[in-house]
């Protein structure tokens, strides 16, 4: 027994030694890059005209995604990462937070030991601090040398600049074209069984839901809004009540929580459009026409309901994810079943072309930041830039060149080969989603559409079909509303947090607990009073100012 113990102790000492000798390499893998890297003049202190980095030059760096709910998977476990690692010697070591992102990043900051690239919300307060403290590299000197980002993003790039005028953020999903999948998905079988009624206005929707409840009481959920705590379907329904800037999905979001009137941002709770939508939605709740578990169920539970065809109408920020998968499975058993999408629901009397269930920004929501301690910032930027260009995007969405695509046509779109297999392509895209560090929708959306338009409607990918016919036409550009948050530890920041708390409670309350329209008014009146007490109008003032600054900046680009 003692020998066993001794053996183990020896073993652990060896391990301890092992770990330590590796730690020299583990922390800064960039330094283990073979000497070839320095041949390309990787030192950022040297003049850039010493040679450019291009794909194929060895590159390795560390990367970290600052989220509690997701991390980058092992680079080589994704198709794109594997290909790049094996064929082009691009190796990225992922640092993971495993659910403890705040603690992980705080630790790294406190010891000044940051990963080479941090991928975080582009307005994240801690990143702003890092920029202030000089811990982040500016990209300005690289923009012309590696021009993909500049070319494809155009002047919108300027909206990403920080207070000092420099660019520190490499956006993740930028585009001049609308993108997004928000809208209404309808269960085909149920729809036909109920006589395929007109589904265009909120009254139509209401009547339809009543019909569903009467016929299928309990077995089918009339209206499924996904997870209401994330807004989702309820946010989509809200947009049915206002045209254009009168009602947008984003107005409910914590970074806005206001309704623009003229050039001012005004209170959400006194807004008549919001109130009307609240009365409508609360009626649906009262009459059990909407999933009663909307505020508690998990993602898995929602997915289950959709996959099993137990919802009649499904709305959310991207109901298409589950619906597309469900549709594929359902038509295998019954070709007549499945889901389809409809043009956005609107209140009677509103212009159907001015209703937008979803929103997008031209700047994406995340950004890649290169830390000042990176050994090879220029090369990293060069890689990010390649990644965002047509070649990189093709790799992510279609796979490596030579397989499903080969070369580019006269429009700069990929030439698809005869071997093109939509299922395999969809799978590739899905498998690469976790490492889609940046996406260039201005390029990739038309590229995807190029294939789809070559193919008859029945063979078109379900998602692509509805994206091109409905959703991409009905998402609204809300770029002007970015960056409206005050610093978190300021007084305004504290007001914002209190308001967020209040709003969540009020929202759930007014939707699920109102007993009548008067009740809705009462709850929202009190909400307004409480919000004012917290300092809502000060926050609105601050946000109005920042919003107008954005508007000016955007207008000056035109």
């Amino acid at each position: 027994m003692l020998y066993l113990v001794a053996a183990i102790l020896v073993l652990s000492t060896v391990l301890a030694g092992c770990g330590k000798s590796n730690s020299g390499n583990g922390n800064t893998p960039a330094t283990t890059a073979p000497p070839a890297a320095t041949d390309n003049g990787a030192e950022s202190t040297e003049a850039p005209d010493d040679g450019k980095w291009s794909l194929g030059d060895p590159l390795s760096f560390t990367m970290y995604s600052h989220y509690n709910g997701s991390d980058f998977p092992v680079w080589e476990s994704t198709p794109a990462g594997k290909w790049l690692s094996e064929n082009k010697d691009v190796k990225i070591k992922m640092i993971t937070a495993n659910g403890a992102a705040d603690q992980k990043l705080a630790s790294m900051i406190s010891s000044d030991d940051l990963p080479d690239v941090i991928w975080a919300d582009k307005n994240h307060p801690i990143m702003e601090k890092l920029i202030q403290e000089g811990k982040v590299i500016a990209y300005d000197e690289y923009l012309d040398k590696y021009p993909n980002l500049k070319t494809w993003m155009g002047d919108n790039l300027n909206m990403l600049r920080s207070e000092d005028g420099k660019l520190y953020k490499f956006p993740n999903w930028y585009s001049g074209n609308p993108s997004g999948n928000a809208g209404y998905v309808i269960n085909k079988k149920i729809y036909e069984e109920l006589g395929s009624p007109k589904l265009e206005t909120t009254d139509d929707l209401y009547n339809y839901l009543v019909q569903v409840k009467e016929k299928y009481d309990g077995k089918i959920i009339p209206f499924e809004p996904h997870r209401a705590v994330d807004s989702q379907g309820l946010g989509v329904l809200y947009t049915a009540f206002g045209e254009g800037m009168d009602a947008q999905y984003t107005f409910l979001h914590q970074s806005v929580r206001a309704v623009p009137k003229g050039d001012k941002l005004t209170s959400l709770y006194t807004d008549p459009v919001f109130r009307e939508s609240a009365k409508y939605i609360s009626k649906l709740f009262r009459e059990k026409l909407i999933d009663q578990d909307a505020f508690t169920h998990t993602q898995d539970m929602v997915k289950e309901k959709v996959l099993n065809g137990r919802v009649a109408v499904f709305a959310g920020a991207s109901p298409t994810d589950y619906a597309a998968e469900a549709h594929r499975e359902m038509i295998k058993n019954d070709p007549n079943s499945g889901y389809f999408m409809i043009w956005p629901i609107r209140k009677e009397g509103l212009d159907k072309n001015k209703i937008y269930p979803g929103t997008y920004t031209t700047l994406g929501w995340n950004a890649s930041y290169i830390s000042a301690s990176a050994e090879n910032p220029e090369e990293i930027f060069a890689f990010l830039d390649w990644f965002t260009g047509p070649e990189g995007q093709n790799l992510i969405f279609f796979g490596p060149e030579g397989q499903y695509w080969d070369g580019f046509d006269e429009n700069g779109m990929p030439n698809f080969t005869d071997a093109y297999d939509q299922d395999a392509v969809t799978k590739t895209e899905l498998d690469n989603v976790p490492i889609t560090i940046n996406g260039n929708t201005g390029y990739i959306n038309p590229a995807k559409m190029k294939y789809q338009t070559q193919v008859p409607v029945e063979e078109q990918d379900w998602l692509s079909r509805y994206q091109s016919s409905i959703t991409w036409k009905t998402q609204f550009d809300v770029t002007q509303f970015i960056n409206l948050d005050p610093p978190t530890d300021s007084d305004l920041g504290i007001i914002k947090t209190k308001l967020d708390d209040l709003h969540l409670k009020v929202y759930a309350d007014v939707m699920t607990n109102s007993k009548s329209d008067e009740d809705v008014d009462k709850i929202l009146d009190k909400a307004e009073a409480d919000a004012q007490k917290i300092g809502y109008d000060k926050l609105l003032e601050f946000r109005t100012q920042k919003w107008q600054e954005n508007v000016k900046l955007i207008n000056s680009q035109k």
Partner: protein
Amino acid sequence: MSQTTAEKAHTSLPEHRVPRKKSFLSRLARQWDIQLMVWPGILLIFVFAYLPMYGVLIGFMDYSIFTGARIWENPWVGFKHFQDFFNAPEFLTIMRNTLAISLLKFIIGFPAPIFLAIMLNEVRHMMFKRVVQTITYLPYFISWVIVAGFATSLLSTDNGSINILLEKLGAIDEPINFLSRPEYFWSILVTSNVWKDIGFNSIIFLAAIAGIDQHMYEAADIDGASKFRQVFSITIPTIMPVIIIFMILAIGSLLSAGFEDILLLAVNPLLRDVSDVIDTYVYRIGLANFRYSYAAAIGLFRSVVGVILLVFANYLARRTGNSLW
């Protein structure tokens, strides 16, 4: 029995000071071997617990993580963060929830494993006993994510088993949205907690009971005492010291009412008023916003209260002869 050198010096007469001092040192020297048992531990704790102890000061500053260990670079703000906390509108709600949830978990969750251990001890069928022991300790290993997922499913209005059961029994007409109603939250939380930890927490008591001298039971049998009686007159009194020690420790953590379980079960914002406790508040307001000092101040507040409770509990326990010191 231990007295510092200073005390010794005061109580001794000048002519005896030298021999007394030698006596202390020589006493110390004579017990070098047990001191040697203790000092590595003292040193380890010094390094890993006391060296970082300057962190308690973070709550009194506007700490920026960029300063790392150089905390003197941060501005001193005294009790500002504590005041902010006490003046926060949610303060009373948070404290009430924390204490209520903690007390409920204690009142139900502390005796439960003890009863389980006692019950298991009464089981004569060895196989059954071992199987039950092993099975009841499984839930401890299931993460809260999974347990909360189960609970959400069970309690949902759409095909949730509990609602279906209640409707079948005729107890209700319409499904109850349990996880949206504040009045049910504490029950759901405490029940799931007790269920999850009861088996694991009973282990220590099982170990204690295993050490009871069997002869006592045999003697009681001969005296005609029923098993039921024996539990109360032999089993419980014998493990009382263990129970009391654990109770003292539990009372010291009264302000730790839970975190992951609450976060995962109180998804509906309507539950916020009954579910928000110190840990969830700090997570939401403090850490997520990098208000590190604020979070640290609240943590310090909790520690101080914890120590006070601990001392108080220990004082009470000392009357029974079992105490930490």
